[in-house]
C-alpha cells in the first residue's frame, strides 16, 4: 500500500507533501497506518469534502493506492470526517517530522 499526503493553505500558505510506501516501514508502523486507513473507511469517503475554504485552514489531499484500487480524498480542517481525523493527524505528524527533506 502507498499513501500520498499533501497539505496546502494555512496562515503561511505553505505546501507540504509526503509519500509513504508501507512496505518500507517497520511492520508495527505499517500495521498502524493500515489500521487507520481501515478505520477511516477510506475507500468509501467522498472524493471532495473540502467545502468553502475557511480562512487560514489547511486543505488536504490524501491518496491511498493498493494493488487493486486507488482513492483520493480532498478535505480540510473544518470539514474532515470524524473517522478520517486520526489518519489525518498521523500523516500530518509524519509530514512535520520530515520537513526539509524532499518527500
Amino acid at each position: 500500500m502507498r499513501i500520498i499526503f499533501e497539505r496546502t493553505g494555512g496562515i503561511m500558505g505553505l505546501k507540504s507533501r509526503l509519500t509513504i510506501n508501507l512496505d518500507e516501514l517497520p511492520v508495527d508502523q505499517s500495521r498502524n497506518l493500515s489500521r487507520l486507513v481501515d478505520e477511516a473507511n477510506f475507500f468509501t469517503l467522498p472524493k471532495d469534502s473540502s467545502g468553502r475554504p475557511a480562512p487560514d485552514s489547511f486543505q488536504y489531499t490524501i491518496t491511498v493506492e493498493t494493488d487493486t484500487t486507488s482513492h483520493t480524498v480532498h478535505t480540510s480542517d473544518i470539514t474532515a470526517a470524524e473517522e478520517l481525523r486520526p489518519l489525518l493527524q498521523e500523516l500530518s505528524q509524519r509530514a512535520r517530522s520530515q520537513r526539509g527533506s524532499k518527500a
Partner: protein
Amino acid sequence: MHAHHSILCITPPHMLQEIVRNGSPTQRDIALQTLITSEQIRGQRRVMKSMAAFMATAVPSGNKERAIYDVKNGTQLPGTLVRGEGDPASSDPAVNEAYDGSGVTYDLFFDIYGRNSINNNGLKLESNVHYQKGYDNAFWDGKQMVYGDGDEDLPVAERLFNRFTISLDIIAHELTHGVTQYEANLAYWDQAGALNESMSDVYGSLVKQYQRKQTASEADWIIGEGLFTSNVNGVGIRTMKAPGTAYNDPVLGKDPQPAHMKDYVRTVEDNGGVHINSGVPNHAFYVTALELGGNAWEKAGRIWYKTLTDKLQERSTFQQACDLTYEAAGELYGVNSLEQQAVKKGWDAVGITIGGDAPTGCLSTILGIFGMKAPAEN
C-alpha cells in the same frame, strides 16, 4: 495533481482549449475539477452570507465579550470554556494571550472606527486554544478563532513554530477575517482572497501598533513576530514593509510574497495564492501609511476600513481595491487631498494605477476560458 493545476493555469488560453478538446481523461478531469470546486465555493458562500445575516440579528448588541475555550489537543469546536469576560487570568499563557489579544483587537475597532465587535453588533469573541497536537497554524472557521500550539510536541532542536497566540498580530489577523466576513465578505480565492488576507494583515499589524503606540515609521510591519523559534532564519511569516524578505530558511524555504504586480504569482494552490499575492496590497497600504506619517491606524487605517465596510464586494480585484481606496480617501479627506495622493502613491509603488487595468487572478482566467462567468456579486 496540484502541480498539474499550476501548469494548467499558466498555459495560454489557446493551448488550454486544445487540452480540453484533445487532452487525456486525466487532463480533462483536472480542468473540470477546478470548475466544480469553484462552483461549490460559490454556492456555499451564499449560504454563509445568509447565515451571517441571521447570526447578526440573533445576537444582541453589547460590549466587549470574550470567551476562551480549551480544545485539549482535540478537534471538537468549541472546546471547554476556560475563561469568560471579566474572569481572572489563567495559569495557561495561551488562554491569556487569546483573551488579551482579542481584547486589544476589539478596542482598536471600537475606539477608532466605532465598530462593536466582529459583526458590529456585539458578537461574542470566541477563541479556541490547544487545537490538535503539533498543529502549526491558526484559522477562522466562520464563527470562531482557532489556535494550535506549533511544534510543542517535537524536541526543542526541531521546533520551528511557537504557539500561535504568541503574536498579537496573528490574533488580530484571525479576528479581522470575521470582520471581513460580515462586511465585504471577500471570496477566499484569487485576488478577492488575497485582499481578504491583506485586510487581516493590515489590521493585524495596526492592532500591534495601536497597543505599542507606534507611528508608521516606528512600527516593524512584521506579521507573526515571535512565532518562529530560534531554529528558523526569519523575523516572521510576512512583512508588509518588504514583502518577500520575512524568512529565508533551509527548511521553510524563502518568503514567496511579491511586493509588486510584476511579480504576481499565478497559481491555484492555496486558493489561488491568497497568502502569497497579499504582499501586493499589503505593501500598498504600508507605502500609503508611511507617506501619511503619524499613527497608521488613524488615516490609512480609516481609509481602508471605509473601503472594507462600504465599498469592496465578494469578487473585488486589486484594481478595484486601488480605485475604491482612492475614492474612500476622497470622501473622507477631500478630492486631491494629501490623503488621497498618499493612496495613489501607495498603489503606484506596487504597479497599480488609479483607473488602470491591472491583470486579475488565475481561477477567473480559467473560468473565462471555459466560457463561464466568475461568481456574481450576491
